[in-house]
Protein backbone atom coordinates (compact mmCIF):
# COMPACT_ATOMS: atom_id res chain seq x y z
CA UNK A 1 0.00 0.00 0.00
CA UNK A 2 1.23 3.48 -0.72
CA UNK A 3 2.75 5.24 2.27
CA UNK A 4 1.62 8.77 2.95
CA UNK A 5 3.96 11.46 1.67
CA UNK A 6 5.03 14.73 3.21
CA UNK A 7 1.81 16.47 2.27
CA UNK A 8 -0.30 13.78 3.96
CA UNK A 9 -1.38 12.64 0.52
CA UNK A 10 -0.34 9.91 -1.85
CA UNK A 11 3.21 8.63 -2.20
CA UNK A 12 4.33 10.10 -5.51
CA UNK A 13 7.57 8.13 -5.47
CA UNK A 14 5.39 5.26 -6.59
CA UNK A 15 5.07 5.87 -10.30
CA UNK A 16 1.71 4.17 -10.59
CA UNK A 17 0.30 6.45 -7.90
CA UNK A 18 1.91 9.48 -9.46
CA UNK A 19 0.54 8.74 -12.92
CA UNK A 20 -2.95 8.07 -11.61
CA UNK A 21 -2.89 11.29 -9.61
CA UNK A 22 -1.64 13.31 -12.55
CA UNK A 23 -4.33 11.94 -14.83
CA UNK A 24 -6.92 12.76 -12.18
CA UNK A 25 -5.77 16.38 -12.19
CA UNK A 26 -4.11 16.29 -8.76
CA UNK A 27 -2.27 19.63 -8.42
CA UNK A 28 0.00 18.29 -5.71
CA UNK A 29 1.14 15.55 -8.06
CA UNK A 30 2.05 18.01 -10.77
CA UNK A 31 3.82 20.28 -8.29
CA UNK A 32 5.80 17.28 -7.12
CA UNK A 33 6.72 16.45 -10.70
CA UNK A 34 7.84 20.02 -11.35
CA UNK A 35 9.97 20.14 -8.25
CA UNK A 36 11.57 16.81 -9.00
CA UNK A 37 12.33 17.17 -12.69
CA UNK A 38 12.45 20.81 -13.65
CA UNK A 39 16.04 21.27 -12.49
CA UNK A 40 17.43 18.27 -14.36
CA UNK A 41 15.43 19.23 -17.45
CA UNK A 42 16.83 22.74 -17.37
CA UNK A 43 20.36 21.39 -17.03
CA UNK A 44 19.75 19.05 -19.96
CA UNK A 45 18.21 21.75 -22.16
CA UNK A 46 21.21 24.03 -21.63
CA UNK A 47 23.41 21.32 -23.09
CA UNK A 48 21.48 21.36 -26.35
CA UNK A 49 20.77 25.00 -27.15
CA UNK A 50 22.86 28.11 -27.23
CA UNK A 51 21.34 30.23 -24.48
CA UNK A 52 19.68 29.92 -21.11
CA UNK A 53 16.70 31.84 -22.43
CA UNK A 54 16.12 29.35 -25.22
CA UNK A 55 16.69 26.50 -22.78
CA UNK A 56 13.95 27.91 -20.56
CA UNK A 57 11.57 28.02 -23.51
CA UNK A 58 12.42 24.44 -24.42
CA UNK A 59 11.71 23.32 -20.87
CA UNK A 60 8.46 25.28 -20.77
CA UNK A 61 7.35 23.65 -24.01
CA UNK A 62 8.38 20.29 -22.62
CA UNK A 63 6.11 20.69 -19.60
CA UNK A 64 3.23 21.70 -21.86
CA UNK A 65 3.93 18.60 -23.91
CA UNK A 66 3.89 16.51 -20.76
CA UNK A 67 0.55 17.96 -19.67
CA UNK A 68 -1.02 17.33 -23.06
CA UNK A 69 0.53 13.90 -23.50
CA UNK A 70 -0.25 12.33 -20.13
CA UNK A 71 -3.17 10.37 -21.54
CA UNK A 72 -1.01 8.90 -24.26
CA UNK A 73 1.82 7.77 -21.99
CA UNK A 74 1.73 4.00 -22.02
CA UNK A 75 4.13 3.27 -19.20
CA UNK A 76 6.52 1.22 -21.29
CA UNK A 77 9.35 3.36 -19.99
CA UNK A 78 9.56 5.41 -16.82
CA UNK A 79 7.87 8.80 -16.68
CA UNK A 80 11.29 10.32 -16.29
CA UNK A 81 12.65 8.96 -19.57
CA UNK A 82 9.39 9.79 -21.34
CA UNK A 83 9.58 13.41 -20.20
CA UNK A 84 13.22 13.56 -21.14
CA UNK A 85 12.49 12.26 -24.64
CA UNK A 86 9.88 14.98 -25.09
CA UNK A 87 12.57 17.47 -24.15
CA UNK A 88 15.02 15.92 -26.58
CA UNK A 89 12.57 16.14 -29.45
CA UNK A 90 11.82 19.78 -28.78
CA UNK A 91 15.47 20.61 -28.24
CA UNK A 92 16.44 18.78 -31.39
CA UNK A 93 14.18 21.04 -33.44
CA UNK A 94 15.58 24.16 -31.78
CA UNK A 95 19.11 22.77 -31.95
CA UNK A 96 18.88 22.13 -35.65
CA UNK A 97 17.72 25.68 -36.15
CA UNK A 98 20.67 26.86 -34.10
CA UNK A 99 23.13 24.31 -35.49
CA UNK A 100 23.83 22.78 -32.12
CA UNK A 101 24.26 19.06 -31.97
CA UNK A 102 21.85 17.05 -29.89
CA UNK A 103 23.32 13.75 -28.82
CA UNK A 104 22.63 10.86 -31.11
CA UNK A 105 23.13 7.18 -30.65
CA UNK A 106 26.27 6.68 -32.70
CA UNK A 107 29.17 5.33 -30.74
CA UNK A 108 31.85 5.34 -33.39
CA UNK A 109 33.66 8.25 -34.96
CA UNK A 110 34.31 9.88 -31.63
CA UNK A 111 37.84 8.68 -31.20
CA UNK A 112 38.56 5.15 -30.12
CA UNK A 113 41.51 6.31 -28.12
CA UNK A 114 42.55 4.14 -25.18
CA UNK A 115 41.67 5.32 -21.70
CA UNK A 116 45.32 5.71 -20.80
CA UNK A 117 48.25 6.66 -23.02
CA UNK A 118 49.74 3.33 -24.14
CA UNK A 119 53.22 4.71 -23.40
CA UNK A 120 52.42 4.38 -19.73
CA UNK A 121 52.43 0.61 -19.97
CA UNK A 122 55.31 -1.73 -20.53
CA UNK A 123 55.25 -4.23 -23.36
CA UNK A 124 53.65 -6.84 -21.14
CA UNK A 125 50.90 -4.44 -20.20
CA UNK A 126 51.91 -3.29 -16.72
CA UNK A 127 52.11 0.30 -15.52
CA UNK A 128 55.59 1.66 -16.03
CA UNK A 129 55.06 3.81 -12.95
CA UNK A 130 52.26 4.48 -10.51
CA UNK A 131 49.64 6.96 -11.69
CA UNK A 132 50.56 10.18 -9.90
CA UNK A 133 48.70 10.86 -6.68
CA UNK A 134 46.25 13.76 -6.87
CA UNK A 135 46.75 16.94 -4.88
CA UNK A 136 44.17 16.93 -2.18
CA UNK A 137 43.71 18.28 1.27
CA UNK A 138 40.14 17.88 2.43
CA UNK A 139 40.21 21.28 4.11
CA UNK A 140 41.47 23.02 1.00
CA UNK A 141 38.33 24.49 -0.54
CA UNK A 142 40.29 26.08 -3.36
CA UNK A 143 41.56 22.70 -4.47
CA UNK A 144 38.09 21.21 -4.23
CA UNK A 145 36.70 24.05 -6.34
CA UNK A 146 39.50 23.62 -8.82
CA UNK A 147 38.82 19.92 -9.15
CA UNK A 148 35.14 20.62 -9.82
CA UNK A 149 36.07 23.23 -12.43
CA UNK A 150 38.32 20.78 -14.22
CA UNK A 151 35.57 18.17 -14.23
CA UNK A 152 32.94 20.62 -15.43
CA UNK A 153 35.14 21.90 -18.26
CA UNK A 154 36.21 18.43 -19.28
CA UNK A 155 32.60 17.26 -19.47
CA UNK A 156 31.54 20.29 -21.47
CA UNK A 157 34.15 19.54 -24.11
CA UNK A 158 33.20 15.91 -24.55
CA UNK A 159 31.58 14.72 -27.78
CA UNK A 160 27.85 15.14 -27.34
CA UNK A 161 26.90 11.50 -26.83
CA UNK A 162 29.59 10.92 -24.22
CA UNK A 163 28.65 14.17 -22.52
CA UNK A 164 25.02 13.19 -22.37
CA UNK A 165 25.65 9.76 -20.92
CA UNK A 166 28.03 10.97 -18.22
CA UNK A 167 25.64 13.77 -17.30
CA UNK A 168 22.68 11.44 -16.96
CA UNK A 169 24.55 8.60 -15.22
CA UNK A 170 27.04 10.38 -12.98
CA UNK A 171 25.63 13.90 -12.54
CA UNK A 172 21.91 13.17 -12.42
CA UNK A 173 22.38 9.65 -11.05
CA UNK A 174 20.16 7.84 -13.52
CA UNK A 175 20.22 4.09 -13.82
CA UNK A 176 21.84 2.43 -16.80
CA UNK A 177 18.39 1.24 -17.92
CA UNK A 178 16.87 4.72 -17.87
CA UNK A 179 19.79 6.16 -19.82
CA UNK A 180 19.48 3.45 -22.46
CA UNK A 181 15.75 4.12 -22.78
CA UNK A 182 16.18 7.86 -22.94
CA UNK A 183 18.94 7.81 -25.54
CA UNK A 184 17.98 4.67 -27.50
CA UNK A 185 21.25 2.97 -26.67
CA UNK A 186 22.11 -0.63 -26.06
CA UNK A 187 23.56 -1.28 -22.63
CA UNK A 188 26.95 -2.04 -24.16
CA UNK A 189 27.07 1.14 -26.22
CA UNK A 190 25.94 3.18 -23.25
CA UNK A 191 28.71 1.69 -21.15
CA UNK A 192 31.35 2.34 -23.82
CA UNK A 193 30.29 5.99 -24.06
CA UNK A 194 30.31 6.32 -20.28
CA UNK A 195 33.71 4.72 -19.99
CA UNK A 196 35.28 6.97 -22.59
CA UNK A 197 33.76 10.02 -20.98
CA UNK A 198 34.96 9.13 -17.51
CA UNK A 199 38.43 8.26 -18.80
CA UNK A 200 38.72 11.64 -20.49
CA UNK A 201 37.62 13.46 -17.38
CA UNK A 202 40.09 11.48 -15.30
CA UNK A 203 42.88 12.43 -17.67
CA UNK A 204 41.93 16.09 -17.36
CA UNK A 205 41.95 15.94 -13.56
CA UNK A 206 45.27 14.13 -13.55
CA UNK A 207 46.77 16.76 -15.85
CA UNK A 208 45.74 19.51 -13.45
CA UNK A 209 46.08 17.89 -10.05
CA UNK A 210 48.56 15.08 -10.55
CA UNK A 211 51.53 15.62 -8.31
CA UNK A 212 54.78 15.75 -10.22
CA UNK A 213 57.05 12.84 -9.44
CA UNK A 214 59.72 13.90 -6.99
CA UNK A 215 57.96 17.14 -6.01
Amino acid at each position, binding site marked *: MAATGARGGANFEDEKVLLMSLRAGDQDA*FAWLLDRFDGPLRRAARRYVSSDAVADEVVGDTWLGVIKGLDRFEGRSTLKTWIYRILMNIARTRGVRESRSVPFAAVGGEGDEPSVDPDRFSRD*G*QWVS*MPPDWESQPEDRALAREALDV*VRTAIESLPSSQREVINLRDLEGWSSEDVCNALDLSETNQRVLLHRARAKVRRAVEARLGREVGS
Partner: protein
Amino acid sequence: MSWVRRMFGRREIVCREFVELVTAYLDGAMDTRTRARVDRHLGACPACTRYLEQFRTVIELTGQLRETDVATVDPVTREELMAAFAATRGD
Protein backbone atom coordinates in the same frame (compact mmCIF):
# COMPACT_ATOMS: atom_id res chain seq x y z
CA MET B 1 30.95 -10.78 -20.72
CA SER B 2 31.94 -13.66 -22.96
CA TRP B 3 34.02 -11.37 -25.15
CA VAL B 4 36.25 -10.83 -22.15
CA ARG B 5 36.63 -14.59 -21.76
CA ARG B 6 37.40 -14.99 -25.44
CA MET B 7 39.97 -12.22 -25.32
CA PHE B 8 41.69 -13.16 -22.11
CA GLY B 9 41.19 -16.90 -22.06
CA ARG B 10 42.75 -18.26 -18.95
CA ARG B 11 45.36 -15.50 -18.68
CA GLU B 12 45.30 -13.17 -15.77
CA ILE B 13 44.28 -9.62 -16.45
CA VAL B 14 47.08 -7.07 -16.93
CA CYS B 15 47.00 -3.35 -16.16
CA ARG B 16 46.53 -2.17 -19.72
CA GLU B 17 43.42 -4.34 -19.95
CA PHE B 18 42.11 -3.41 -16.52
CA VAL B 19 41.91 0.32 -17.32
CA GLU B 20 39.44 -0.50 -20.09
CA LEU B 21 37.28 -2.62 -17.78
CA VAL B 22 36.75 -0.18 -14.94
CA THR B 23 33.25 0.98 -15.91
CA ALA B 24 32.02 -2.56 -16.49
CA TYR B 25 33.53 -3.53 -13.15
CA LEU B 26 31.85 -0.65 -11.29
CA ASP B 27 28.53 -1.37 -13.03
CA GLY B 28 28.68 -4.95 -11.85
CA ALA B 29 28.41 -6.01 -15.48
CA MET B 30 30.91 -8.85 -15.35
CA ASP B 31 30.53 -12.56 -15.00
CA THR B 32 31.78 -14.01 -11.73
CA ARG B 33 34.97 -15.41 -13.18
CA THR B 34 36.06 -12.18 -14.83
CA ARG B 35 35.19 -10.22 -11.73
CA ALA B 36 37.32 -12.62 -9.69
CA ARG B 37 40.21 -12.07 -12.10
CA VAL B 38 39.87 -8.33 -11.73
CA ASP B 39 39.70 -8.57 -7.94
CA ARG B 40 42.82 -10.74 -7.94
CA HIS B 41 44.62 -8.23 -10.09
CA LEU B 42 43.59 -5.33 -7.88
CA GLY B 43 44.80 -7.19 -4.83
CA ALA B 44 48.25 -7.44 -6.36
CA CYS B 45 48.48 -4.09 -8.16
CA PRO B 46 48.62 -0.84 -6.22
CA ALA B 47 48.80 1.15 -9.46
CA CYS B 48 45.49 -0.18 -10.75
CA THR B 49 43.99 0.15 -7.30
CA ARG B 50 44.90 3.83 -7.35
CA TYR B 51 43.54 4.15 -10.88
CA LEU B 52 40.23 2.67 -9.73
CA GLU B 53 40.12 5.10 -6.81
CA GLN B 54 40.71 8.00 -9.16
CA PHE B 55 37.88 6.80 -11.36
CA ARG B 56 35.62 6.72 -8.32
CA THR B 57 36.73 10.23 -7.38
CA VAL B 58 35.86 11.49 -10.85
CA ILE B 59 32.39 9.96 -10.59
CA GLU B 60 31.88 11.55 -7.19
CA LEU B 61 33.06 14.95 -8.38
CA THR B 62 30.69 14.76 -11.33
CA GLY B 63 27.84 14.08 -8.95
CA GLN B 64 28.81 17.13 -6.92
CA LEU B 65 28.29 19.30 -9.99
CA ARG B 66 24.59 18.81 -9.49
CA GLU B 67 24.71 20.74 -6.25
CA THR B 68 26.70 23.58 -7.77
CA ASP B 69 24.21 23.97 -10.58
CA VAL B 70 20.98 24.91 -8.92
CA ALA B 71 18.27 25.51 -11.47
CA THR B 72 14.91 26.32 -9.98
CA VAL B 73 11.65 27.19 -11.68
CA ASP B 74 11.00 30.88 -11.36
CA PRO B 75 7.70 31.48 -9.55
CA VAL B 76 5.96 33.07 -12.54
CA THR B 77 6.66 30.12 -14.82
CA ARG B 78 5.66 27.73 -12.08
CA GLU B 79 2.32 29.49 -11.70
CA GLU B 80 1.71 29.40 -15.45
CA LEU B 81 2.50 25.72 -15.64
CA MET B 82 0.27 24.89 -12.68
CA ALA B 83 -2.50 26.86 -14.36
CA ALA B 84 -1.97 25.05 -17.65
CA PHE B 85 -2.14 21.76 -15.81
CA ALA B 86 -5.35 22.76 -14.06
CA ALA B 87 -6.89 23.97 -17.30
CA THR B 88 -6.11 20.81 -19.22
CA ARG B 89 -6.64 18.21 -16.52
CA GLY B 90 -9.43 19.77 -14.50
CA ASP B 91 -12.98 18.69 -15.03
